[in-house]
């Protein structure tokens, strides 16, 4: 409760926003995001999207997995409905993050639409850093701090999107391939690292195996069907294991 007693006048909203931006610049996530979004920019280039579209997609979607799913699905000719459902399934994980963070940042005076704007910045990296840093910030300034943090992470991600796009367009083929290869290798490793329990690990393996099989069989909605089948199979294994305990 001590931070509640700290006088609010010691930090203006602008100062808190600025402090959030500086925290973003010092965060290890800024490097991770930079690398990831170079790969995303290159991917968007080679799948035929414009550079402006790629930048707008980073600003509007602001969730790496969803963005990769959107450009891959649309670029390979998936239907819009399949792509939208795949994005929606990947986005559900954002809801508990928002639910957990907002009570820590809002005050009785906070307007709902302010929260909507702030919630837009919430993604895995920003969420982790918020919880680590927010105890140092007086409650009345936490929203501004989080906005600064989110903004400070998004701007480098936008720069990286443009850089990756340009690299894919300008580099000789072998190096352009390397930039393009960032997305699969980085997402494979980070998804594996985020998969701490058996059900997530199984879902990763089953998805890797089933998606090519479903694509080869030329099912309609192959990406979605493979994901739901592989995920449900993994969940089933988890239930069987729980039941045998």
């Amino acid at each position, binding site marked *: 409760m001590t931070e509640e007693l700290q006088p609010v006048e010691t930090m203006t909203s602008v100062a808190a926003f600025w402090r959030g931006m500086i925290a973003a610049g010092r965060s290890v996530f800024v490097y991770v995001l930079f690398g990831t979004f170079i790969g995303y920019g290159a991917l968007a280039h080679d799948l035929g999207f414009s550079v402006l*579209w790629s930048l707008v997609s980073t600003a509007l*979607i602001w969730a790496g997995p969803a963005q990769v799913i959107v450009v891959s699905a649309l670029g390979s000719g998936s239907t819009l409905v399949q792509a*939208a459902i795949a994005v929606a399934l990947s986005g559900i994980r954002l*809801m*508990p993050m928002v639910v957990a963070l907002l009570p820590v940042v809002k005050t009785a005076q906070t307007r709902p639409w302010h929260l909507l704007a702030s919630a837009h910045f919430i993604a895995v990296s920003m969420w982790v850093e918020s919880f680590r840093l927010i105890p140092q910030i007086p409650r009345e300034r936490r929203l501004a701090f989080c906005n600064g943090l989110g903004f400070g992470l998004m701007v480098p991600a936008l720069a990286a999107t443009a850089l990756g796009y340009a690299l894919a367009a300008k580099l000789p083929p072998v190096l352009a391939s390397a930039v393009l290869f960032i997305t699969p290798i980085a997402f494979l490793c980070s998804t594996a690292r985020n998969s701490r329990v058996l059900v997530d690990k199984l879902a990763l393996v089953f*998805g890797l195996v089933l998606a090519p099989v479903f694509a080869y069989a030329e099912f309609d909605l192959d990406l979605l069907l493979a994901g739901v089948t592989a*995920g449900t199979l993994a969940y089933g294994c988890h239930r069987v294991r729980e039941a045998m305990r």
Partner: protein
Amino acid sequence: MNLTVSDLNPYLVLILVGFLPNEIWRWLGVFFARRIDEESEVMVWVRAVATAILAGVIAQLVLTPPGALASLPLWIRLAAIATGFAVFLAVRRSVFLGVLCGEAALVGLSLAFGS
């Protein structure tokens, strides 16, 4: 039902397919700010399906990649991702080292055996 990206304005597609299906969960988080049990059965299943969809996209990007990556032989792409992932697993589950070694394998093999 069978609309694809070429049928509509690309920015409209971005809003409908990329922005709204993702942002809706942030909005729902603001308005229905009830604690969600992340270990509830539904959330475990959702996380598994979302992980599997992302895994499927990863497989697709390696097996049938877009653009420049498609010019490299399949075995090089597979060898590179296997190398990167093996290093990731072996060395403290470091994503950075996994990516670095996967990239090194891709470029090295391409220069040695590529066209």
